[in-house]
């Protein structure tokens, strides 16, 4: 009997990482998603990350056709999908050799041995069979001919071999359920519902699931202890599994509901931003969507929509935001509310389209001609992608400005459990009242916010003209007056600065007043940094963590906060763009821990780097 080592992370809270890997046709993402659902049902906390192949549909069994799904779950807060897997389920040689690097030393390795014949090995481009050549020695290997077992389990259904084989992912899922003491019921119910019109398939998959589960019972390995979270505060409400992209789409729908205005969401397909457009198109009219002919048109149509009184939102990834540069300048000087989302990917140019990076920060803040300040926000977690949209919209309509929201490929695809907010209790998005007492000027400003009024065409009696040429303060008429231009430039900048005054002051994510080091992150790295800092602090270090959601204007209190710590360092998936900004703003000697690999931070790498900073 093999005994499974305890794989709980050093930080205390028990958390386990499971990774499924197979051919893109093997139903990996589906099995992973079901496992996540059962994790949610167990009230555990979790985070998932899909690892899709770059190719649309690669030939079966090849290295570049491998699809994987990773989940970390635990009783306490789980903040990342995990650095390394405790359990890896691999469906073929290609999946095994490309994913082995993700398995912890000594981890449990479940391999479907059915494809480890000469043909399978050749497709994966290897000569020697890893199951035989001793190369897996560091792990606890369980070889099962899953295909064969699945076929056996389904023999009574009279299905063709090909069709029956398709259930192998559920067979494997059953086994993994057994490993973690999970219930089969809810997956069974889901299968029945999903294949309501095809009960045979439903039954076959259920049979495979049960067979896999039963196999576990007969196996001579110790099962993991299941990890159940504390009961949710509102037990009536089931946790949803939500990816950042999905949360952001819901956030956009929320903008429409909370502002009581139409949203026109304009986009041109691009990885990894397209999933937003897909999700919104499915919402069926909650939000109007427009697939434009290119990114410039998508930005311009959103500007047109905002001009006409809707909330215009445009989204893309780096190459697309680059193309929108000129249009954003128009929105900025026309002073119209607009949200531009950039789901960042690794650059420059086409770069690595499916991989995350945070290297568009400087473009977002500085990348426009002329003096063109605008607010930049970044969500920290998948769930935060919901809230950030509502905040962005509030800023946009309150200050009459375009707002850039920086997400990334990791945040868009990572998913975690989410208890949706109580819609009734959400504050509305307040659109400033337009009250002119007969004295309407398109570029007159609100005393407090410095915003100009939003008077869309169709408003009786207030027809006026605006444009991208410099405007006379107040009247909005074209003006080349030097003093006016200086004043308008100042007003546009101050209007943005004042946003900070109305927004919350900085607050540490991990407070540690006498810390030796402050680490500042932004965007999608929140989970990894929090986890790394928490673990280090448990190990006796003193590190504070601040995560910026508001990157421009920088939040109130930031300078003072930085001054409190002997050393401040940023951690970013770029070459230190936030550090450069903070250095310039506060003249503080901030360095950065930076990683530009197209991968999210690993907690272990971060810890190592943070420790190195402490030693300096």
């Amino acid at each position, binding site marked *: 009997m093999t005994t499974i080592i305890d794989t709980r992370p050093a930080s205390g809270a028990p958390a386990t990482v499971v990774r499924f890997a197979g051919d893109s046709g093997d139903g990996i993402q589906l099995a992973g998603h079901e496992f996540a659902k059962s994790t949610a049902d167990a009230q555990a906390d979790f985070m998932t990350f899909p690892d899709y192949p770059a190719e649309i549909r690669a030939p079966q069994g090849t290295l570049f056709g491998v699809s994987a799904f990773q989940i970390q779950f635990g009783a306490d807060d789980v903040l990342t999908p995990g650095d390394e897997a405790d359990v890896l389920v691999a469906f073929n040689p290609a999946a095994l050799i490309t994913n082995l690097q993700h398995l912890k030393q000594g981890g449990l390795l479940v391999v479907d041995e059915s494809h480890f014949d000469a043909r399978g090995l050749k497709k994966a481009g290897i000569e020697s069979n890893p199951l035989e050549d001793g190369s897996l020695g560091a792990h606890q290997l369980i070889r099962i001919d899953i295909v064969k077992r699945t076929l056996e389990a389904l023999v009574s259904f009279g299905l063709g071999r090909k069709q029956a084989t398709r259930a192998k992912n559920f067979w494997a899922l059953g086994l993994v359920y057994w490993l973690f003491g999970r219930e089969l019921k809810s997956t069974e119910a889901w299968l029945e519902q999903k294949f309501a019109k095809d009960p045979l398939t439903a039954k076959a998959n259920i049979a495979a699931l049960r067979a896999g589960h039963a196999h576990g019972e007969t196996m001579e390995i110790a099962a993991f202890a299941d990890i159940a979270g504390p009961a949710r505060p509102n037990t009536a409400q089931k946790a949803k599994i939500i990816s950042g992209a999905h949360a952001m789409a*819901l956030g956009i*729908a*929320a903008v*429409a*509901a*909370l502002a*009581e205005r*139409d949203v*026109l969401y*304009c986009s041109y397909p691009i990885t990894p931003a397209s999933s937003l457009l897909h999700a919104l198109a499915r*919402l069926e*009219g*909650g*939000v*109007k969507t*427009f697939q*434009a*002919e*290119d990114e*410039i*048109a998508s930005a*311009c*149509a*959103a*500007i*047109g*929509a*905002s*001009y*006409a*009184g*809707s909330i*215009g939102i445009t989204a893309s990834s780096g190459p697309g935001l680059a193309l929108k540069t*000129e*249009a954003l*300048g*128009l929105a900025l000087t*026309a002073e119209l509310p607009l949200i531009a989302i950039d789901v960042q990917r690794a650059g420059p140019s086409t770069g690595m389209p499916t991989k995350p990076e945070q290297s568009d920060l400087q473009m977002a803040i500085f990348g426009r001609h002329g003096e063109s300040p605008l607010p930049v926000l970044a969500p920290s977690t998948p769930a935060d992608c919901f809230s950030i949209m509502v905040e962005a919209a509030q800023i946009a309509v309150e200050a009459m400005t375009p707002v850039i929201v920086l997400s990334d490929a990791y945040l868009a695809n990572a998913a975690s459990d989410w208890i*949706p*907010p109580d*819609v*009734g209790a*959400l504050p509305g998005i307040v659109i400033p009242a337009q009250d002119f007492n007969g004295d309407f000027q398109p570029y007159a400003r609100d005393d407090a916010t410095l915003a100009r009024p939003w008077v*869309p*065409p*169709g*408003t*009786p*009696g*207030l*027809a*006026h*003209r*605006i*444009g*991208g*040429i410099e405007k006379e303060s107040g009247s909005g*008429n*074209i003006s080349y007056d030097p003093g006016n231009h200086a004043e308008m430039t100042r007003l546009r900048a101050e209007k943005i600065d004042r946003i900070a005054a109305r927004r919350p002051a900085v607050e540490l994510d991990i407070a540690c007043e006498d810390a030796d080091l402050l680490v500042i992150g932004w965007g999608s790295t929140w989970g990894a940094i929090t986890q790394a800092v928490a673990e280090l602090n448990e190990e006796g270090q003193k590190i504070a963590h601040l995560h910026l959601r508001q990157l421009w204007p920088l939040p109130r209190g930031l300078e003072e906060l930085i001054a409190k710590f002997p050393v401040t360092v940023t951690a970013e998936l770029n070459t230190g763009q936030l550090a450069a900004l903070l250095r310039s703003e506060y003249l503080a000697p901030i360095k950065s821990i930076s990683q530009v690999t197209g991968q999210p931070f690993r907690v272990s790498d971060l810890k190592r780097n943070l420790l190195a900073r402490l030693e300096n």
Partner: protein
Amino acid sequence: MNLMDTKPVTAADYASDQEVRWCPGCGDYAILKVVKNVLAEIARPRDEVVFVSGIGCAARFPYYLSTYGFHTIHGRAAAVATGVKLANPGLDVWVIGGDGDFMSIGGNHTLHALRRNVDLNMLLFNNAIYGLTKGQSSPTSPIGTRSPTTPNGSVEQPVNALAFALGAGAKFVARGADTLQTHLPTVLKRAHENKGASFVEILQNCIVYADGAFGAINDRSESHNATIRLEHGQPMIFGKEEDKGLVWNEKAQEFRAVALADTPEQQLAVHDETNIQRAFALARLEQPDFPVALGVLYASDAPEYAHARGFTAKRKPFDREALKSLL
């Protein structure tokens, strides 16, 4: 919404308080005059009318009208206007731009607004030159145009805006000329009536950089010899004395210009504005061999885009209840 008190009555009511700043003698003045008259005839409240333009001399147009106006960036007016229309399909949206705006930098947006059939009145002020930037040749400049960027004469084949529009799938394609102050309004009114993208090329004389680019066409007295005014169902007759006509040569699949004296009227081609093939041939008629075709070359019904998308007034607003059901 009480719109009564903003209801305009005369063309003058459509003038803004801004001083008009085109060069003296520019054809844009004549177009402005016609547009104001047409707006007065249409008589929609100024507040429901929007003029969206790009950048160029033509694109200053919105400043001179008392309607809503948005002077955007070069080439993007059609895209901005599409957003306006999708956000509020109830507005009467006009798009104004020059040949640089519509056919050079903005060519792609022109194409897609046309094929989508967004309900926009798109007026291309074609002066065959870049006016505002001081006279460079444009994509509609004829071969041989001498300009600061083509000092020895341009060699690029110009694009025929109406042939382009037809190729792009436009459902309403028409042409007018700045000086033809009785003809142009009829074209603009038809364009306005059309639900969907109405593409109108207005031949406009830039007196400074391309004076006479359209020869006799917008010379009021000679214009009838250089143009043919198309009317649906009518034989194709032109000439100051109505003494010339067009005959369709079936073999060559092209028009032939004839003297009526030599040709029985029943041999003349009859204009059928629903026929896209004929429209394509008409669009390509060029001086000096042929009269340039004016009027509505092509008009055909097709679903308007915002409507086809269901973005109508009847659309149920999205609210908290609806949001709740999503979460």
